[in-house]
C-alpha cells in the first residue's frame, strides 16, 4: 500500500447509438446553412430509455470492475441535467449499484465544472483517509434544433474511484479560480442554454480566464509546461484547445483528443471522460493536467503510476467509443428527447402511476435486481419470494439476497413486438437464463443491427422502464443487452 491519494480506478459509458451529424445538417441546411462546418462525424445519443442517472450507473459499474462494492464509502453525481431537483439522484445510482445503506451521497450541479469541482473535493477528502469515494459525472443536454450545440453535444458519463492506497494516478494538487463569466446559462424553466457571442467567449473566457488560470495553476503546482505529458482541455470549439496548449507552452502532442468527432461534448462529464482516455493511454510517471471550465476554472494535476498496468480490463472510453451503431434517424432522436410530439395512440395512455410504498418495499428488487437464492436447495429465482419456487422443496423463508445485475445470461425465448406501445418500436423482449441460475422475462435494449436469436449472450443494463408523464415520475428497471 503506497498510502498515496488519487484515482484508484476509472470507468466510462458512451451510449451505443451515434447520430450522424450529416443527417441533422441535412434537415436544417435550408434554414441554417452555416451549420455545415459542424456537420462531420457523429455524436453519441442516449436511447429513449436512458438519462443522466442510467448513464451514470453504467459508468459506475465500469469504474467498479473488480472492486468489492461494500468498500465504497460515498459517491457523488455531477451534472446539470439531473432528472430530479429534489430527490437524491445519486441515491438512485446507489440503489442500482446495490451499495450498502451506510454510505454518504451527494448531487453536484450548477456549472459545467461540476465534474472537476466534485473530483477536487473528493480528492481533498481522500487526503483525510476517507473510504473510497466514487465520483460520477453524467450529462444528457438538450439543444435547440438548428443550433450548433445540437451538433457538437454528446451524451456520456464517466466515473472515477478516488481514495488512498494503490492509486493508478497520484493527486498532486489543484488550483481553482471562480469568476462569474456568463458564456452561457440555463435556468429551471429553460430547455436550452442561452449563450453569448463565441468570439467574446474565446477572447475573454478561454484565452484570458482559462488560459490565465492554467498558467497560474501550473506555476502554483510547480510544474513546468514542458513537463506536462497529457493535457485535458474539454473545450470543443475549433482551435480552442490547441490555442490554450500553445498559450500555456505545453507541447501539442500532449493534448487529449476532445472526442468531438466520435462522441461530442458531454458537458459536465467531458473533462472526466477525457481524463479517462488519458489514463487509458498513460505510462507511469506521466504528468496529467485536467482543466474544468464553468464560471471559473479548475486545474488538477495527477501523476500516472505503475499500478495502471495492474488495473483489471474495463470498457472505459476506448471500449465505449468502439461499441457503436450508426444512426441517421434525426426525428426519432427529437421524439426521444421530447422535442417532437408524435401521435402515440391509445395504448400509450396506460397509467404508469408508481406507488411510493411498493417501490420502497421492493427497492432492492427493482433498482438492484436482487433476487433470491434458497439456502437449502441453491435454487436462484427472481424476484425473491417467501416460498421458494424450487419444486423439490417447499421451504419458506430460506432465501438470501442474490444480486443478478452483473451476471451474464442467454436468450431462451424472444419476440419483436410491433403492437405494444414502445417509443422505439418494435419492442424486443424475451426470457433469459442467468449463469448459475435464475431466469427473467425482460425487455431487451441496444439490439439495433444485432441478430437476436435464442442462445445469444446478454448482459444486464440499467434503464428507464416507463415514464409517468402525468406525474413526472421515472420508473427504472433493468433490461438485457447483447454482451459484446
Amino acid at each position, binding site marked *: 500500500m503506497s498510502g498515496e491519494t488519487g484515482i484508484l480506478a476509472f470507468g466510462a459509458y458512451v451510449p451505443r447509438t451515434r447520430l450522424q451529424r450529416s443527417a441533422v445538417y441535412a434537415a436544417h441546411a435550408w434554414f441554417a446553412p452555416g451549420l455545415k462546418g459542424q456537420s462531420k462525424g457523429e455524436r453519441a445519443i442516449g436511447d429513449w430509455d436512458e438519462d443522466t442517472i442510467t448513464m451514470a450507473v453504467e459508468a459506475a459499474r465500469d469504474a467498479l470492475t473488480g472492486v468489492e462494492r461494500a468498500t465504497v464509502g460515498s459517491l457523488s453525481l455531477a451534472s446539470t441535467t439531473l432528472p430530479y431537483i429534489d430527490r437524491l439522484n445519486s441515491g438512485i445510482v446507489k440503489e442500482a449499484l446495490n451499495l450498502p445503506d451506510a454510505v454518504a451521497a451527494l448531487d453536484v450541479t450548477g456549472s459545467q465544472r461540476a465534474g472537476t469541482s466534485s473530483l477536487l473535493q473528493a480528492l481533498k477528502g481522500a487526503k483525510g483517509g476517507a473510504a473510497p469515494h466514487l465520483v460520477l459525472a453524467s450529462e444528457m443536454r438538450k439543444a435547440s434544433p438548428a443550433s450548433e450545440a445540437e451538433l457538437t453535444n454528446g451524451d456520456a458519463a464517466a466515473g472515477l474511484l478516488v481514495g488512498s492506497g494503490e492509486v493508478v494516478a497520484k493527486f498532486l494538487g489543484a488550483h481553482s479560480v471562480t469568476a462569474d463569466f456568463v458564456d452561457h446559462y440555463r435556468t429551471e424553466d429553460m430547455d436550452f442554454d442561452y449563450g453569448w457571442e463565441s468570439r467574446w467567449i474565446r477572447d475573454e473566457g478561454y484565452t484570458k480566464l482559462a488560459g490565465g488560470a492554467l498558467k497560474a495553476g501550473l506555476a502554483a503546482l510547480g510544474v513546468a509546461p514542458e513537463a506536462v505529458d497529457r493535457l485535458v482541455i474539454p473545450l470543443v470549439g475549433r482551435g480552442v484547445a490547441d490555442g490554450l496548449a500553445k498559450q500555456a507552452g505545453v507541447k501539442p502532442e500532449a493534448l487529449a483528443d476532445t472526442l468531438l468527432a466520435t462522441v461530442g461534448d458531454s458537458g459536465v462529464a467531458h473533462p472526466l471522460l477525457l481524463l479517462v482516455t488519458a489514463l487509458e493511454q498513460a505510462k507511469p510517471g506521466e504528468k496529467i493536467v485536467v482543466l474544468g471550465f464553468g464560471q471559473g476554472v479548475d486545474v488538477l494535476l495527477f501523476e500516472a503510476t505503475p499500478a495502471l498496468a495492474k488495473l483489471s480490463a474495463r470498457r472505459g472510453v476506448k471500449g465505449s467509443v468502439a461499441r457503436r451503431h450508426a444512426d441517421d434517424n434525426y426525428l426519432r432522436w427529437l421524439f426521444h428527447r421530447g422535442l417532437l410530439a408524435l401521435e402515440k395512440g391509445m395504448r400509450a395512455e396506460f397509467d404508469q402511476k408508481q406507488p411510493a410504498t411498493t417501490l420502497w418495499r421492493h427497492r432492492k428488487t427493482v433498482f438492484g435486481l436482487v433476487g433470491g437464492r434458497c439456502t437449502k436447495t441453491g435454487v436462484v429465482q427472481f424476484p425473491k419470494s417467501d416460498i421458494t419456487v424450487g419444486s423439490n422443496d417447499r421451504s419458506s423463508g430460506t432465501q438470501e439476497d442474490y444480486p443478478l445485475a452483473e451476471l451474464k445470461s442467454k436468450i431462451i*425465448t424472444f*419476440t419483436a413486438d410491433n403492437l405494444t406501445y414502445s417509443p422505439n418500436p418494435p419492442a424486443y423482449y424475451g*426470457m433469459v437464463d442467468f449463469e448459475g441460475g435464475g*431466469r427473467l422475462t425482460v425487455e431487451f435494449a441496444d439490439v439495433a443491427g444485432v441478430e437476436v436469436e435464442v442462445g445469444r449472450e446478454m448482459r444486464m443494463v440499467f434503464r428507464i422502464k416507463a415514464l409517468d408523464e402525468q406525474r413526472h415520475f421515472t420508473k427504472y428497471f433493468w433490461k438485457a443487452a447483447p454482451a459484446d
Partner: protein
Amino acid sequence: MARGIKDKVAILGMGCTKFGERWDKDADSLMVEAFEEAVADANVDVSRIDAAWLGVGFDAMNIGPSGIPASIALRLPNVGVTKVENYCASGTESFRGAVYAVASGAADIALAIGVEKLKDTGYGGLPVRTRGTTFDMVGVVGSAPGNFAQLASAYRAAHDVSKEDLKRAIAHVSVKSHANGAKNPKAHLRKAIDMDTVLNAPMIAEPLGLFDCCGVSDGAACAIVTTPEIARALGKTDIVTVKALQIVSSNGWELQQGGGWNGAYFHTTRVAAQRAYDEAGVTDPRRQISLTEVHDCFSITELVTMEDLFLSKEGQGWKDVLNGVFDADGEIPCQIDGGLKCFGHPIGASGLRMIYENYLQLLGRAGPRQRSKPPTLGLSHNLGGMPSQNVSAVAIVGLADA
C-alpha cells in the same frame, strides 16, 4: 383420490350470441341474447335455476365487478351469482362453478354465463391494464401477440425447425380455421384466406403476422347444467354429459431456470390434459377424442397445444398440422367452428363457446359444419395468461353412454 365428475352432470341447454363488433349491444344485452337461446334449448323455467356463475375477464372495462350485473340483466329470481375470472380461461371457470354445484348436489340446475364487451375500449387487441403492483415495476408490458410469439423461438430451438417451416405450419392453422368459420353464421370473420395472404401479412410480433392472431370481439355464451336424471325427467333423450373438467395454474415453476421449462410448450396444459383423460377414462386420445376446440388466440398456441394434449408427438405437431390431421376433414378436427380466430375472443365467453360447438356437434346440430364421422367425445382447451405463467382448463364432453 377423488374420482372426478364423469357423467355426473348433463348439459340441459346452451346458447351463444353472434360474436363480432356488436356496436348495437351492451354486455347486458349480449348476456340476454345467449341466455334466451339457452333457456329455450333447455326448455326449463328460469325459476328452476338454483345458482349461477358469471365469467368476465376485463370487467372494469365493460360490465363492472361482482355477479350482480348478470343477476340484473337476466332478472334472476333471488339466485346467488358468483363472478369468476381466470384470465382467458374465465369461460371454463364459470362452467366449472355451475358443474361442480350440480355434481356436489348443492344445486339441481345451475347456470354458467360468460360475456365480454371489448369494443368500447377504442382500439383493437386486449386493453392495456395493470397486472398488479409488483408486475408493474418489474414485468414486461408486452402485447398478447408478443407474449405468445415467444413460443415460436423456443419451439424452433427445441425441435430444430426452420423459421420457414414453422411459419408455414402456423399459417396452415389459420387457413384451416378460416375455411371452417366461413360455414358459421355466428362467427365474426367468415371469409376464407389463403397461405400467401397469411405468409405475407404485416408482422405483429415476430413471427406472428396479422393472420396468426385472433381479434378481440364482443360476445356471450351460456350453459344450463343439471344431473342426467333431472335432464331425462325433463324429457331430454340425447344427453351430453361432462366427462372431465380439469384446471391447472402455474406456480412460477416455468419462470425459474432449474425447473427445466424450455419455453416451447404449456406445462399446465399437459398436466390438465392428462388429468382430464384419466377422469374421462380416455387412454388413447388420438383415437378417442373426436374433435377439439383449443385456445387459438395465436396460431402458434394451437400448434403446440396439439402436442400438449398428446394428440401429436412432441416436436412433430408442425408436421401433423401441415399434413391436415386437424383440418375439418382430418382425423381430429380442431376449431371446426372457426375457433377464436374467426369468432374473436370475448374473454369471458370463449370457453363456453368452445363447449357450445362440441355440444352441437355431439347432438348432430352443427349443420354444414357437422363432422362427417359422428363424434363421441369433444375436448375444449381454454387457456389464460401467457406461456410462462398461465391457467389451463381442459373440459371433455360426450354423449352420456360414450
